[in-house]
């Protein structure tokens, strides 16, 4: 069987054949100007065909530490002292004086002095009463340690086992002076097996490996002879910066679909709204706390809204003052038209629902009518982890003859079941414009918790009668904040997260 090898491996094989002896891998790579990794990969290919191999050898690498490098630069302390004495041309000197002149650290100075004595360069005497140093040698040939330390100029790291006997002695001397760092390292030597040494290059076929298939390879058919470089398929790819819809939009669209499937038609109404449609038409008395500044955004511009047809305004006025023809006692106070003309940022989508009731009257519509709205509303709130000044409300209504509370419970169960909540509970509640009213909570399997959803009920006759909707025609209604579903659904703890767009989250959040 012929052996197939990559072009580069063949080239390396040729070089190795010429070398005859084993080679230090790192040096070999340097020599060939290739990466160490490439060289080792080539050896692995050779090993696969039993042509080559490598062996590992543990070595002690030695190099000068900071102090050692300092001496390499400026000379060992003994040499520094000697130089000092010879330059100032003195044969004798007071030790203290030399110490000061040398600017050496005390300890190092004494190490230097002791080595000068060992080298038989000086002698010391206190005969005159002071501690004096006498230069006694005539010549000062380079010492062996000096020679040794200087070898590190060319080779910052050397291998201990490669030192000569004498050098090892010098190393041990200097090592005692703590001038070296030692490091254990593994070196790889590469070699050819007998098969590798004897194989004829002409018997080896070139294997071509590529990282991708080109159009040229396909058309020429040469793809057959290429070997596709394997990838590490377990590793994640780089981040794809692609487009995606916002999680809240996904949820809104899901809920829109639920409404549509239940026969509801989507409506849309003004954001800047009159107090008339936002409050008065909903039978909220004009002194109701919800209408106050701390709950509602009022506008300075535009400041007043036009009211609908006069007779409808008077009908709403009458429900407030004496119940009008709704069968109610009314709130029994004097209703003020200017208060109703104030402009607000709508506090709920129910103002849009009211406009639908007004349309119902105007167009003399036929029942049943089912409409829904998922849209932005505004409340004068300070932002914190559970409050926003602007959020999204979901609302649905049914206008039909003889619809009742039982129908509403059925409707709510079906609606929340379709969204994904199988269990629902409806309890007595209070909302100013519905009676009977119900609070709705659903069970969320994923958290094992009951979640408060929102309010529901049958619109009060005081709300519907000005628009010609009278018993037995009634209006079922329910509504809630979208965020109450979105937060547990997307596992957010802070409601503000939903509107600050952290791109990382937007990219990672599943649909």
């Amino acid at each position: 069987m012929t052996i197939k090898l990559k072009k580069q491996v063949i080239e390396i094989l040729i070089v190795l054949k010429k070398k005859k002896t084993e080679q230090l891998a790192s040096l070999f790579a340097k020599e060939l100007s290739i990466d160490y990794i490439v060289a080792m990969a080539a050896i692995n290919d050779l090993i696969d065909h039993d042509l080559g191999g490598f062996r590992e050898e543990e070595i002690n690498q030695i190099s000068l530490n900071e102090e050692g490098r300092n001496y390499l630069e400026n000379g060992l302390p003994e040499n520094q002292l000697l130089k000092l004495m010879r330059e100032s041309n003195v044969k004798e000197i007071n030790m203290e004086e030399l110490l000061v002149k040398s600017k050496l650290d005390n300890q190092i100075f004494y190490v230097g002095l002791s080595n000068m004595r060992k080298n038989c360069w000086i002698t010391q005497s206190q005969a005159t009463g002071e501690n004096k140093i006498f230069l006694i040698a005539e010549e000062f040939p380079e010492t062996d340690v000096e020679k040794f330390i200087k070898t590190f100029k060319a080779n910052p790291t050397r291998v201990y086992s490669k030192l000569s006997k004498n050098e090892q002695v010098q190393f041990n001397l200097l090592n005692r002076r703590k001038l070296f760092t030692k490091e254990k390292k593994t070196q790889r030597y590469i070699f050819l097996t007998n098969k590798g040494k004897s194989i004829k290059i002409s018997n080896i076929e070139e294997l071509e490996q590529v990282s991708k298939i080109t159009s040229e390879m396909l058309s020429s058919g040469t793809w057959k002879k290429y070997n596709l470089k394997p990838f590490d398929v377990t590793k994640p790819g780089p981040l794809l910066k692609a487009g995606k819809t916002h999680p809240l939009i996904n949820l809104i669209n899901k809920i829109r679909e639920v409404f549509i499937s239940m026969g509801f038609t989507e409506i849309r109404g003004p954001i800047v709204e009159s107090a008339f449609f936002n409050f008065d038409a909903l039978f909220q008395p004009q002194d109701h706390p919800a209408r106050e500044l701390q709950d509602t955004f009022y506008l300075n511009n535009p400041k007043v809204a036009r009211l609908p047809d006069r007779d409808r305004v008077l009908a709403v006025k009458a429900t407030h003052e004496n119940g009008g023809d709704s069968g109610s006692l009314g709130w029994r106070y004097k209703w003020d038209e200017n208060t109703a003309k104030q402009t607000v940022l709508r506090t709920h989508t129910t103002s849009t629902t009211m406009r639908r009731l007004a349309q119902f009257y105007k167009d003399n519509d036929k029942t049943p009518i089912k409409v829904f709205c998922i849209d932005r509303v505004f409340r004068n709130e300070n932002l914190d982890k559970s409050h926003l000044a602007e959020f999204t409300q979901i609302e649905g209504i049914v206008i039909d003859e003889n619809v009742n509370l039982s129908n509403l419970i059925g409707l709510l169960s079906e609606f929340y079941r379709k969204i994904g909540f199988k269990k629902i509970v409806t309890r007595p509640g209070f909302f100013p414009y519905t009676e009977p009213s119900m609070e709705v909570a659903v069970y969320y399997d994923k958290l094992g918790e009951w979640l408060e959803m929102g309010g529901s009920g049958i619109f009060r006759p005081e709300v519907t009668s000005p628009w010609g909707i009278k018993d037995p025609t009634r209006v079922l209604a329910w509504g809630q904040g979208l965020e109450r579903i979105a937060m547990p659904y997307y596992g957010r703890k802070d409601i503000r997260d939903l509107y600050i767009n952290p791109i990382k989250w937007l990219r990672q959040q599943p649909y």
Partner: protein
Amino acid sequence: MKIDRLEKLVGRKLEIDELEYDLQWIGLDLEDINREEQILKVEYNPNRPDYSSPEGIARTLKGYYETELGAPTFDLQKSEIVVTVDPSVKKVRPYIVCGIVRNIDLDEEEVATLMSIQEHLHWAVGRDRKKVAIGVHDLDKVKPPYRYTAVKPDSISFIPLHGDGYAMNLEEILLLHEKGIEYAKILEGKEVYPIIFDSVGEVLSFPPIINGILTTVTDETKNLFLDLTGTDLNAVNLALNILSTTLSDMGAKIETVEVKYEGGENLITPNLDLNEWEIEIDYINSYLGLNLTKAEIIKCFQKVRLDAKESKKQGYLDVYIPAFRGDIMHSVDLTEEVAIGYGYFNIPKSIREGCIGMYHPIQTFSNKTRTIMIGAGYLEVLNFILTSSEKLYDFMRQEYEESDLIQIANPVSKEYNTTRTSLLPNLLETIRFNRSEEKPIRIFEVGDVVLLSKEEETGAKREIHLSAASYHEDADFTEIRSTLDFVMMALGKFNEYEIKAENNPSYLNGRYGEIYIKNVKIGEIGEIHPEVLLNFKLEFPVAALELNLQKIM
């Protein structure tokens, strides 16, 4: 609300878990449960001010547990005490009703209840004392008959409660006294102020501000005089009825007062007579989707502490409503009472089919645009419509007049003082928020802007816009122009639109154009001006576009 106190009132052993479950069915939400100390905190129900005491809640619970059915009764005696009302109060605070409470022996908790019930009534029924203010006095410190009148602010002085112990005239109280300062707004612009004297001219109260020190209630107090003044006779009566029935349930004896309106009616208050209401049986059943018999409905009413009996009118019931219930103004309110008495959990589910649903065309078009933008590789973001004029105009190097803005009269902060007229500033801010993310950042938003419009009923209109922005080292006009071409092609408008080279301070000269379809401007496109980039603290160029989708639909 302590469980043991409630047990005493209800007359039955109660478990905290049982209560947690049961209270929801009479329309009460729990705010907090302290199992260790056996205390329940009930959320205030603005519709039922009579629930602002354990006594009030206990009445309904007794019905729920069927230990006591029908309208609660209260012992009411007549006293000889008379209050005269001078017509001068019509100009400032026209109504007063009063009551006498004898033999009070309140423990610490009951005193606390009395304080909290007053607070609730002041807020919920009284609209922060404007509509109703309550005065509670030591009856034995003053001499009847009493007189409710109105006087010139500086004509009368007395020592107010919680003051420094000095006599002050009414003007001084409004200027200097803590409560005077707090409630002065209620009397703003009035020439005369209301006041209650006793027969020797001692001041009981300066409603709705503060009582005199003379009638301070202490541990020694045995008998109380209640005064409730206000602007709405129904509201003052309701507050008096709730207060006196609660005191009655605490074991005190309630007596009436004769309130003589000079030149008008004489009232005997409190009036705890039941109110009568006629209601059709079929109406109730039809409303609730039930099929209850007369007897069953009567039982439901009794469980929620109302009374009912067969009416002379065929198919009708006469319902009797206790005087502490202020929330019944229509037959639907009684219908809900039946539902609560029957138990919401017993009402069956039923489905009413019918109708064909339809999406709103604007939403459909918005979603279509979103799909196209995602195809172009843009990530969708969502921002608030609320914004600041600084971001909208100053940061964008645009000139504006205050009168061009939607102006919020009471903004939460300067950051949200108007509504957006374009989406792009929000996108630049979103980029700033994410600027350490890997580039390129390509984002878009489809959303509402709000524009002033005299033609609209409310003076403003909303429009759906699309804005897209690309942020990276090489973002330029060519890139965003390609995006626009792609979008327009996908919307089927490729052959209809043109771009006219213009100048705009938000964009770089020579790199900005306005987008037109049939001579109607539908949008803008270009490279953002470096000063704008710096205003938003951005480090790379931005190429952006904004389209008014409603003009393309």
